[in-house]
């Protein structure tokens, strides 16, 4: 096979070479008279040879470029010729009368008994491979096709969507899931026995193992079974209208009945809220007993209900599908659905109703009354958030039940309904992809999509927070905390800080981050003697981010970030800070607080360090936080914030505050009254102007970060934490943290 290809390619290249050679010969004839300008001292014969060679090389390079950079264009143009294929060109397959019929579906089938997981194997992408059988036209012995519609538009859409997706493979040997091209979406158009025989004739059928059938309209008159009647061995069934008795939980997939209106009508999303009607019923084929009951409800509640039916006075044609009537008044369907808060979806002959899709599209909350119906994609979708399921028996109580639902919940359901439609119902592609994703999640459960990913519309995904430290846990005091001191070369002050911190009872370890590459840290003997382990880490670059690196040396959960010049904090203040952190391990716990404000004149955020009544950030010149946030800062900081901080040598604390507030949705905690790290006299020397540039720069950081985060995550609070007996009239000796209070 390989040899064969090589030779064919060789042939192509030599053929091209020949053609070019001739072209260049002509050219060289022209230039020949002028003499050897380009390549002197060489015979014409050779020159031609060389030019030919160079052209071949050039051509080769161009061809390479073409293949490298426009592979798709080449491919699609190749396919374009296939594009004009007709369904009628598909090969005809005659089914012998005696061809075997598969067994009826086995109700006890589960993934671990009827599905061959070895075919899916282990792959790093955790994605199953799906193979689609090429289209064939099956006919019986006398030439009658097995299906009256043949390949339907919807099934064709579904298959081409799968074929265009990441799931698709055209290599049958690598496939994990097989999809027949035999269209069984609508059982009514099928000849059951022959369809079953056709399935069994598929080359990889193997008792239906790993085969997936899509069916939306199961059963037929008079019984209307709730699952496809075609015998199908062990094949998985993605069916619309399963009942709890036919649905094999964890094996079959319940899918919606696709509504063709979805493609035709564009209903813009409406804001959730109260609508003109409270309840709307738009189905035309409602059992007369139920219609009587609905009419009774209408009598009782009047205008709140709108009960629509077919239009008897209009001609029965394609357009009549889009009209509904009430007492001679004509309404446009499905537009009218948008005028109601709740829309009734009653069972028909089948449990699955295409109306459900229309209702969801309209952002109307479906009231589903179909006992024992397995709702579409119920394995992953939380229908309680988008619908109301009422037993058929309780139809007369529908109005009271719906009235008891809080308004805000109805609004959320309206939004959720629309989102379900957009994500999972809107097209055959959406339905197909969701089905495959569900099966994929079963095969690679450890990489499955989460409840939130399935159910939260993007608005909620955006605004809700899932704190990574969600368990309410007050860690024990005993492990203590690790103090991380970032230093450059202020050794004297550093040593004082170390001596001071070492007095804090819960200090477990001291980690000095030596950020000066030009100078070595002092000798071991020169360091102050402390009772806890002291480690010095040398960094490769002088970056502010180094202070937030999740060093392996930090073995405690709690980290105290502290600058090498902060000597004012008392041991009581630090110990108390640690105690508060234990109560709020998912927050930043710091001393001086800062605030962000919206500057209306400038139309942007402003940084505030004045004596405010509010706090939205704490300085990390001395702050307790969970080591997880170090990891987050170093590896998960959005955008280029980290580089910005390192480049500007400022705002690392603001970045940390943004990060923590964004992921937890919580404000930091300011402890103790402390407002400044340094004594007021010391800062006075710096002068006002320096202070002002500082403020401008900090404000700039806030604006920059807010734009990177796409929102302002900081939360403002008006409280700070003090010891229980702070400033109380109580003997200082008996207070746990007496030495708190200096500013």
């Amino acid at each position, binding site marked *: 096979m390989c040899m064969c290809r090589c030779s064919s390619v060789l042939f192509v290249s030599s053929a091209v070479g020949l053609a070019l050679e001739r072209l260049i010969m002509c050219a060289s004839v022209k230039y020949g008279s002028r003499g050897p300008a380009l390549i002197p001292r060489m015979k014409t014969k050779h020159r031609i040879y060389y030019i030919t060679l160079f052209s071949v090389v050039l051509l080769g390079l161009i061809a390479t470029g073409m293949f490298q950079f426009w592979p798709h264009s080449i491919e699609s143009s190749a396919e374009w010729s296939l594009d004009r294929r007709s369904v009628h060109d598909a090969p005809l397959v005659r089914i012998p009368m005696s061809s075997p019929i598969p067994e009826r579906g086995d109700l006890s089938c589960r993934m671990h008994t009827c599905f061959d997981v070895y075919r899916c194997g282990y792959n790093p992408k955790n994605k199953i491979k799906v193979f689609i059988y090429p289209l064939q036209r099956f006919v019986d012995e006398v030439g009658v096709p097995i299906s009256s519609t043949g390949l339907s538009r919807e099934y064709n859409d579904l298959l081409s969507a799968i074929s265009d997706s990441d799931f698709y493979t055209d290599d049958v040997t690598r496939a994990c899931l097989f999809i027949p091209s035999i269209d069984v979406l609508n059982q009514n158009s099928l000849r059951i026995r022959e369809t079953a025989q056709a399935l069994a004739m598929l080359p990889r059928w193997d008792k239906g193992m790993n085969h997936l059938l899509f069916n939306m309209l199961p059963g037929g008159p008079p019984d209307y079974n709730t699952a496809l009647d075609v015998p199908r061995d062990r094949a998985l069934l993605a069916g619309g209208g399963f009942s709890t008795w036919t649905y094999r939980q964890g094996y079959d997939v319940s899918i919606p009945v696709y509504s063709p209106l979805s493609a035709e009508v564009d209903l813009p999303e409406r804001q959730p809220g109260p609508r003109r009607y409270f309840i709307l019923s738009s189905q035309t084929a409602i059992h007369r007993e139920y219609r009587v009951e609905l009419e009774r409800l209408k009598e009782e509640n009047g205008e709140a209900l709108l009960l629509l039916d077919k239009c008897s006075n209009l001609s029965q044609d394609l357009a009549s599908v889009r009209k509904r009537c009430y007492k001679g008044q004509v309404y446009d369907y499905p537009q009218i659905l948008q005028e109601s808060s709740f829309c009734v979806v009653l069972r028909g002959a089948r449990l699955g109703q295409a109306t459900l899709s229309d209702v969801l599209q309209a952002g109307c909350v479906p009231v589903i009354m179909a006992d024992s119906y397995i709702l579409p994609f119920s394995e992953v979708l939380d229908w309680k958030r988008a619908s109301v399921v009422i037993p*058929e028996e309780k139809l007369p109580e529908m109005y009271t039940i719906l009235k008891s639902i809080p308004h805000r919940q109805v609004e959320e359901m309206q939004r959720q309904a629309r989102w379900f439609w957009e994500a999972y119902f809107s097209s055959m592609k959406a339905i197909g992809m969701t089905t495959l994703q569900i099966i994929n999640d079963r095969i690679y459960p450890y990489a499955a999509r989460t409840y939130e990913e399935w159910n939260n519309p993007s608005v909620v995904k955006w605004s809700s927070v899932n704190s990574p430290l969600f368990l309410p846990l007050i860690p024990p005091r005993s492990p203590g905390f690790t103090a991380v001191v970032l230093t450059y070369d202020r050794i004297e002050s550093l040593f004082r800080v170390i001596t001071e911190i070492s007095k804090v009872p819960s200090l477990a370890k001291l980690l000095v981050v030596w950020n000066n590459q030009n100078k070595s840290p002092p000798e071991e003997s020169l360091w102050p003697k402390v009772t806890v382990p002291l480690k010095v880490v040398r960094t490769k670059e002088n970056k502010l981010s180094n202070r937030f690196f999740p060093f392996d040396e930090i073995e405690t959960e709690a980290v105290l970030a502290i600058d090498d010049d902060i000597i004012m904090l008392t041991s009581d203040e630090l110990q108390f800070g640690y105690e508060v952190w234990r109560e709020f391990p998912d927050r930043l716990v710091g001393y001086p607080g800062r605030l962000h404000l919206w500057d209306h004149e400038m139309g942007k955020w402003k940084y505030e360090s004045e004596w405010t009544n509010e706090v939205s950030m704490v300085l990390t010149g001395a702050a307790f936080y969970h080591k997880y946030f170090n990891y987050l800062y170093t590896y998960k900081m959005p955008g280029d914030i980290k580089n910005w901080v390192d480049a500007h040598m400022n705002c690392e604390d603001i970045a940390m505050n943004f990060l923590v507030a964004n992921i937890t949705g919580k404000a930091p905690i300011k402890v103790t009254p402390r407002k400044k790290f340094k004594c007021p006299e010391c800062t006075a020397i710096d002068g006002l102007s320096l202070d002002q540039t500082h403020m401008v720069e900090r404000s700039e950081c806030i604006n920059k970060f807010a734009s990177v985060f796409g929102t302002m995550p900081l939360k403002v609070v008006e409280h700070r934490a003090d010891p229980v007996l702070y400033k109380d009239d109580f003997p200082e000796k008996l207070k746990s943290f007496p030495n708190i209070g200096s500013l």
Partner: protein
Amino acid sequence: MQAKKRYLILFSAGVCLILLFYLQGPASRRTPNRGDDPHPHWPHFSDPLRAFIPWDQTETEDYNVRVSPRHKRDDNSGAYKCRMDSCFDFSLCGSNGFKVYVYPQQKGEKISESYRNILSSIESSRFYTSDPGQACLFVLNLDTLDRDQLSPQYVHNLKTKIQNLNLWNNGRNHLIFNLYSGTWPDYTEDLGFEIGQAMLAKASISTENFRPDFDISIPLFSKDHPRTGGDRGYLKYNTIPPFRKYVLVFKGKRYLTGIGSDTRNALHHVHNAEDVVLLTTCKHGKDWQKHKDARCDKDNAEYDRYDYKEMLHNSTFCLVPRGRRLGSFRFLEALQAACVPVMLSNGWELPFSEIIDWHTAAVIGDERLLLQIPSTVRSIHQDRILSLRQQTQFLWEAYFSSVEKIVLTTLEIIQDRVLQHNARSTLMWNRLPGGLFTLPQFSSYLGDFPFFYSVLGKQAISVEMIVVRAGFTASDVLTMFLYQIIVLWNCDKPLPAKHRWPATSVPVIVIEGESKVMSSRFLPYDNIRTDAVLSLDEDTVLSTTEVDFAFTVWQIFPERIVGYPARSHFWDSNKERWGYTSKWTNDYSMVLTGAAFYHRYYNYLYTQYLPGSLKSMVDQLSNCEDILMNFLVSAVTKMPPIKVTQKKQYKETMMGQTSRASRWADPDHFAQRQMCMNKFASWFGTMPLVHSQMRLDPVLFKDQVSILRKKYRDIERL
């Protein structure tokens, strides 16, 4: 020239090779598309295709002529396996709500410890009724837990005993608990008697036998499993990075033959004695020597080298392979130890699978892919490990830590089915504080609970109201956040005349308590419209500033009680009981509800969740209602309440004048509260209160800065 030629040939050959390489390279990458395969992708057919459903058939009309759908529904009942629709009589639950009847225990009937625990858990729950006429669900007095014929606990003649029950009715609305079924060699799931239409709450149930939304899968628990309370999870820290000493561990029996032996026999292939430690022993049963194979001695020696507890606590993942039956004790052990369970039990319907999203707390493996398990668990990202681990702890404490929780969860699941559209949503079950504390009857809307603000991305609402109890003087606590005032007139004196009431800008609603008992202060009155409730005693003196500040704090912590005076508890090791103290201490664990903010949901929870016995005790003593509320809220949140700053006169005024003050001075009063604490702790099965060492003050509280700068300046003025 010769050389030139040679070079030329060489050169051209090189060029050809390069060309070949380039041309073939991309081609081979797309090999399958070309060559003999006729359909690289699904072709785009140009001819018009028909819709799968003709336009005139979108709704099937012939349904209308058929029999009544009601009849069709009834037809279902006998034909298939049971479902709620077909085998459960909802009408029994209609009028009286969800009540559970336990058949009275008969003399001489042997009942195991575990089953006794189950029954007493039901009997002490709020669902219990002793009147079968009111019951919606029936629980047997016959021990059905162990249906292994070879077991000493096996109850004989169960079949006839059950048939003789007067209310059996073919098992309709009955719930049967079972832990073990079947016996060697095939371990079927047959209970040895006809269960009829009864629901099964069964351990180790397989997906094939499981009747979805009808049966309930419960975890296998040992006879030592505590009845109430239960130990907390072992997780104390969230270490970063979240890896522990071992990646994956298992220690257990190995079955040499028979059902369930395949997986455990194969474990040694994965064992590497370093970070994946899977140990098995053949030493179990009387005649293990007879069956032993070549590996047994080596395995047994390795098995004895490791301590199970040590492994459990130091491993990131714990393997939970099937035993003879599908479930094993390893599951709950791993869950409690915050060791993420790796399930290796094909076809096991996981415990409470109806409501618990196990993907968030466990790794579900496939027995057939045992060899892939190590690489699978190693590929799990550390962020995910962190969240899986925390979720194991949440689930353990919410649903599994005691027999009572397992039983209550079972009952609540059934109640949810009865409630239908009012049932809890997946979020309520899978988020803190869990389904047992989230009562769906309160509201079906998540935003009405204080726990889901962050999930919904919602801010707390900024309206509040005040409940003043018994009398009024509190007219000066009007704040801008106030929505309305409700006065509970709990005293025997008649209501004062209308003109004597102070004029207020918000509505005042007076409710005359009928029973005049303490618990009525926590009744979930319909008049309470706002999320925040400020509960006040009539003698409380608070300034507007203090209330405003406390309210802003409550908005940040809506799930906790935010109050002023605080109290503390301690363990009195001499007397072996809990002590109560009202002294000024450096920490606290309760705040008094004589002046406190809390979410109105706690009124509902207090009234509905707590048993009658505790509430009536409070009413009789006219005391301890605040302690009980603190117990409840801390049990829900696992967090301390929050004390905010106040002017220091509160305590003194309370001690000062009124009738109530004398109560505080009474030594009996104090002894009562001590007793309450211990009673409550024993009902909760554990001490839910948590200490806090901090108080929340306004940011500029008592700072040496101009008072004009301060927002809450009145708090500092005495």
